[in-house]
């Protein structure tokens, strides 16, 4: 326990927010610091930080944005590291629709395939790589519906509007939410560049450093893994 209880404003990428709630609760119990979570898309957070947002920590959904901020001198140099790596899943709420090898993609008997926008979201970029690797990109391009982020992509599929979609493993594995039904294919890591999510300390403070230390710790890594992420 630290001597002074501090308050940390933590900007966290939407895809990681459920996991972060659990992490933060544990950290708060252990240290007495309080954490205010600010959900949002990494792009928005980036813009806001550039324009003076009062955030202490930035948990991004990619490596790109924290790196830019660090280079711009808006973060504490040397505090940037990878806290999680996302896993891509091809999922459908229908049972037995997706086989463990994901051959359904090639069969192509669906109207819409959902994925995140590859220009904006790392999961989208990864999904695109998978399709390209399988040589299906040009075939399926016309049937793609693209969510702004991975959360929206999930909603496309969940509502049944798209029959299947590439989403994050964390979205169907979260212990905190309802049991996810349906069928899925966990895409092998070799099919796409790792989806590395990095954190950056924006304002130096003992509590901030404490939190980074906690994230790196064994307890936190276990927790992160239990939500469907890889950890370095």
């Amino acid at each position, binding site marked *: 326990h630290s001597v002074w209880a501090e308050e940390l404003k933590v900007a966290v990428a939407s895809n990681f927010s459920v996991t972060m709630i659990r992490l933060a609760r544990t950290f708060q119990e252990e240290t007495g610091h309080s954490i205010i979570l600010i959900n949002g898309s990494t*792009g928005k957070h980036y813009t806001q930080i550039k324009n003076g947002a009062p955030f202490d920590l930035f948990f991004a959904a990619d490596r790109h944005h924290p790196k830019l901020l660090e280079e711009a001198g808006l973060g504490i140099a040397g505090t940037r590291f990878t806290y999680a790596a996302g896993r891509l899943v091809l999922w459908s709420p229908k049972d037995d629709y997706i086989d463990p090898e994901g051959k359904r993609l090639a069969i192509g008997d669906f109207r819409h395939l959902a994925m995140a*926008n590859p220009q904006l979201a790392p999961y989208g970029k990864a999904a695109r790589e998978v399709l390209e690797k399988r040589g299906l990109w040009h075939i399926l391009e016309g049937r793609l519906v*693209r*969510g*702004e982020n991975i959360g*929206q992509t999930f*909603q496309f599929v969940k509502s*049944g509007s*798209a029959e299947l979609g590439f989403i994050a493993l964390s979205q169907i594995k979260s212990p905190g939410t309802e049991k996810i039904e349906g069928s899925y294919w966990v895409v092998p890591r070799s099919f796409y560049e790792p989806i590395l999510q990095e954190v950056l300390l924006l304002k130096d403070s003992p509590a901030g450093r404490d939190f980074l230390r906690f994230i790196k710790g064994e307890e936190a890594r276990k927790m992160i893994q239990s939500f469907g992420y890889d950890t370095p």
Partner: protein
Amino acid sequence: MDISALWLTLKLAGLSTFILLLIGTPLAWWLARTHTRLKVIIDAAVALPLVLPPTVIGFYFLVALGSKGWIGGVLERLGGRPLAFTFSGLVMGSVFYSLPFVVGPLKDAFSAIGRRPLEVASTLRARPFDRFLTVALPMARHGYLTAAVLGFAHTVGEFGVVLMIGGNIPGETQVLSIAIYDHVEALQYDQAHWLSAALLLVSFLLLLVVYGMKHRRKKEAFR
């Protein structure tokens, strides 16, 4: 890509505005002239969608339109194509969401006419629909202008609902507002600025023409 998005945007906004005025007219007329308890409820219900965030509306819409949702289910049973991720779905969502912006001004415009001009028309042999067309409509033209401008502009700018229902399919459901948004999110500020400027300019010119026409008419009326 951006040209097709512009075209799609104008098509969506134009069509939505048209449908909005079409639906809004009888609704506003009825609201302006009835005095039942029911009216108050409908009055409130029309403005209600506004209080939900567009994305959330979009989400509920998506759920309703999906094959398990009640709209989607009914449509499917009737053999229709599902509406999600189609242009028709976009139109439907936009209309639903912009309705209060059209109904409000129209209702006020109809109220402001009062009963007298319609009574006069009825003693001049005009049947109800006839006097609606030849007296109520032209006398409510200020309200129509406001309603059309608000409905059109809101549809152009709105993207929460559209994003959700449309699925951002280039050439089909990717409107300009989404394109701009995407550019901003992707830190492609130059493109975003450029597109925003273009959109603003086109809209400004459009609005100038519309208001300019009204202005000319008013000036005439005062001379």
